[in-house]
């Protein structure tokens, strides 16, 4: 051996791996709900546009084609009006094989009466889906699971689905190593975390020293009832049913008609059986459900958490947190937020790089837009909370909304505000600005005055669909 070779370092200084995605770069996506599927799909599409080839593994232990808890994503399953349009403009069409019922209207139920509000364009603008394959009693597979349907888009572009639970994540040698159950560790250039807030996997990332902390959460209740397609069409129809009832601690409740099932969603503080019993026993709920309905005869129930706080820093060098694992919309349109964060994350990673700085400049603004809108959303929800707890305001809302139904779009101010609040179809900022419009305020104050003088509101809107 020559002196030169003997004096050479045992290992040549390692070049730091570049913080960009290049031809052959490897990405792990953890979670194959809508956020994970859309991120992988958009990343592969953008990579193809700029002429590079990416290897993407999507880790998802659940099979969304299987009915019951093992394929369930614990969600109300509403595809908002704006998301239906956004997906359509991305050439992602939601067929009647996955949409169980098109929603063209909603009923607002209060103790003072009910009113139906139609979509301004008289189209089926909202989709009701099951995120998984439905409750375990869903033996007839007439509709595909939404999450399973969305998986086909990245898989069709060449992503690999790995049916395994991630057990360990390590940062080493400028790459990230993922160890999944019964599999050898794999190294990746980028890891995108797209799991829900109910997933224990998020704990793994808090211990990595990348500054990630899980979002603040609150509990919701979701129940499924099997009523049959014909009964649902006759009773609930193609309307989402929203309830503003003065039940202690209940913030918001909705009943969503689907194919053979209806989904009941409750949101509030410390949801317990007493609150749910009070809700299902209320005359407003009994009146919109079929007479033979037995509240105890449910197909399934879960109490999942939802993200209400968002993550301050949903990224680090080689890490991205999207959808519920990062920032989502307050109370509504979680799948819409998953789409927006997934697309922004894919754009940042493929076009700008995978460094913390690249994500700060090109991914964080999309998250901030959602977080800032949520702050305004909290103010807008004060309005519905006020309506919920003040009989005079409930009567005024009912009166004004019923009177608006005969008018054309721009003059249906309160109906539009309520539609967008409950369907999650517009940014909260837009809704709040419309609430501050002098014409809205004037008309609402007038309705309060009339409601105070005349008492109960006209009952014209109480007809069933």
């Amino acid at each position, binding site marked *: 051996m020559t002196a030169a070779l003997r004096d050479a370092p045992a290992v040549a200084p390692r070049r730091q791996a570049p913080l960009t995605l290049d031809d052959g770069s490897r990405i792990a996506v953890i979670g194959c709900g809508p956020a994970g599927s859309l991120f992988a799909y958009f990343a592969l599409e*953008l990579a193809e*546009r700029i002429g590079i080839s990416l290897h993407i593994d999507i880790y998802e232990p659940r099979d969304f084609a299987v009915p019951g808890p093992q394929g369930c994503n614990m969600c109300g399953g509403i595809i908002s009006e*704006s998301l*239906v*349009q*956004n997906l*359509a*403009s*991305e*050439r992602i*069409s*939601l*067929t*009647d094989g996955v*949409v*169980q*019922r*098109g929603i063209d209207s909603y009923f607002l139920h209060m103790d003072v009466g009910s009113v139906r509000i139609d979509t301004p*364009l*008289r*189209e*089926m*603008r909202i*989709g009701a889906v099951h995120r998984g394959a439905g409750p375990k009693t869903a033996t007839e597979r007439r*509709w595909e699971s939404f999450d399973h349907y969305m998986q086909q888009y990245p898989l069709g572009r060449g992503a690999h689905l790995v049916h395994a639970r991630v057990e360990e994540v390590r940062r080493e040698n400028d790459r990230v190593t993922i160890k999944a159950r019964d599999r050898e560790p794999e190294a990746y250039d980028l890891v995108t975390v797209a799991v829900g807030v109910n997933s224990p996997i998020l704990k793994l990332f808090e211990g990595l020293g990348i500054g990630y902390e899980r979002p603040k959460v609150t509990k919701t209740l979701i129940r499924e009832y099997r009523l049959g397609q014909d009964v649902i*069409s006759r009773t609930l129809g*193609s309307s989402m049913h929203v309830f503003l009832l003065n039940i202690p601690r209940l913030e918001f409740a909705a009943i969503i008609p689907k*194919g053979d099932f209806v989904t009941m969603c409750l949101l509030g503080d410390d949801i317990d059986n007493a609150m749910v019993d009070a809700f299902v026993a209320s005359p407003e709920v009994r009146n919109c459900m079929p007479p033979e309905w037995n509240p105890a005869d449910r197909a399934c129930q879960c109490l999942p958490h939802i993200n209400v706080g968002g993550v301050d820093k949903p990224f680090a060098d080689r890490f991205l947190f999207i959808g519920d694992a990062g920032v989502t919309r307050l109370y509504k349109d979680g799948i819409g937020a998953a789409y*927006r964060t997934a*697309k*922004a994350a894919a*754009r940042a990673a493929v076009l700008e790089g995978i460094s913390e700085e690249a994500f700060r400049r090109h991914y964080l603004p*999309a998250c901030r*837009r959602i977080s800032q809108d949520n702050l305004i959303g909290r103010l807008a929800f004060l309005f519905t909370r006020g309506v919920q707890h003040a009989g005079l305001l409930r009567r005024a809302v009912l009166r004004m909304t019923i009177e608006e139904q005969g008018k054309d779009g721009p003059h249906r101010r309160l109906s539009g505000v309520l539609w967008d609040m409950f369907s999650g179809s*517009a940014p909260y900022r837009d809704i709040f600005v419309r609430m501050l419009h002098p014409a809205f305020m004037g008309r609402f104050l007038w309705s309060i005055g009339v409601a105070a003088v005349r008492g109960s509101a006209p009952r014209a809107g109480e007809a069933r669909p």
Partner: protein
Amino acid sequence: MTHAALGRTYEDGEIIVRQGDEGEALYMVQEGEVEVVAERGGRETRLGVVGRDQLIGEMAIFERQVRSATVRALGQARVLTLDRKNFLRRINEDPTLAFRILETMSRRVRDLSEEVVRLKEALGEGGGPPR
């Protein structure tokens, strides 16, 4: 088409967009086909047939002009209306969404170029050597 289908179902011949009307929205064909016809001097000329997952009325995004053609269902067709304001807001947030529009327009320019060549050849105006 079932009660679960999103958008609106148009029957054969039903008009989705009328030439001369103001354009406030775009449309995405979800199922079936629609035909695009231009009317001039009482005569109709079919400009094309548009199928599933294709956009129509996309010029409304860029110009505040009246519709340049009529679009009607060719058989039963399901069409989703895309709100112009929502679409522009999304493009503002995510400029890559405009790629879809540009793809559509690029394809139409290519089709039109081929049509011009075909018409010029038919009129005997083509055929010269490339310069």
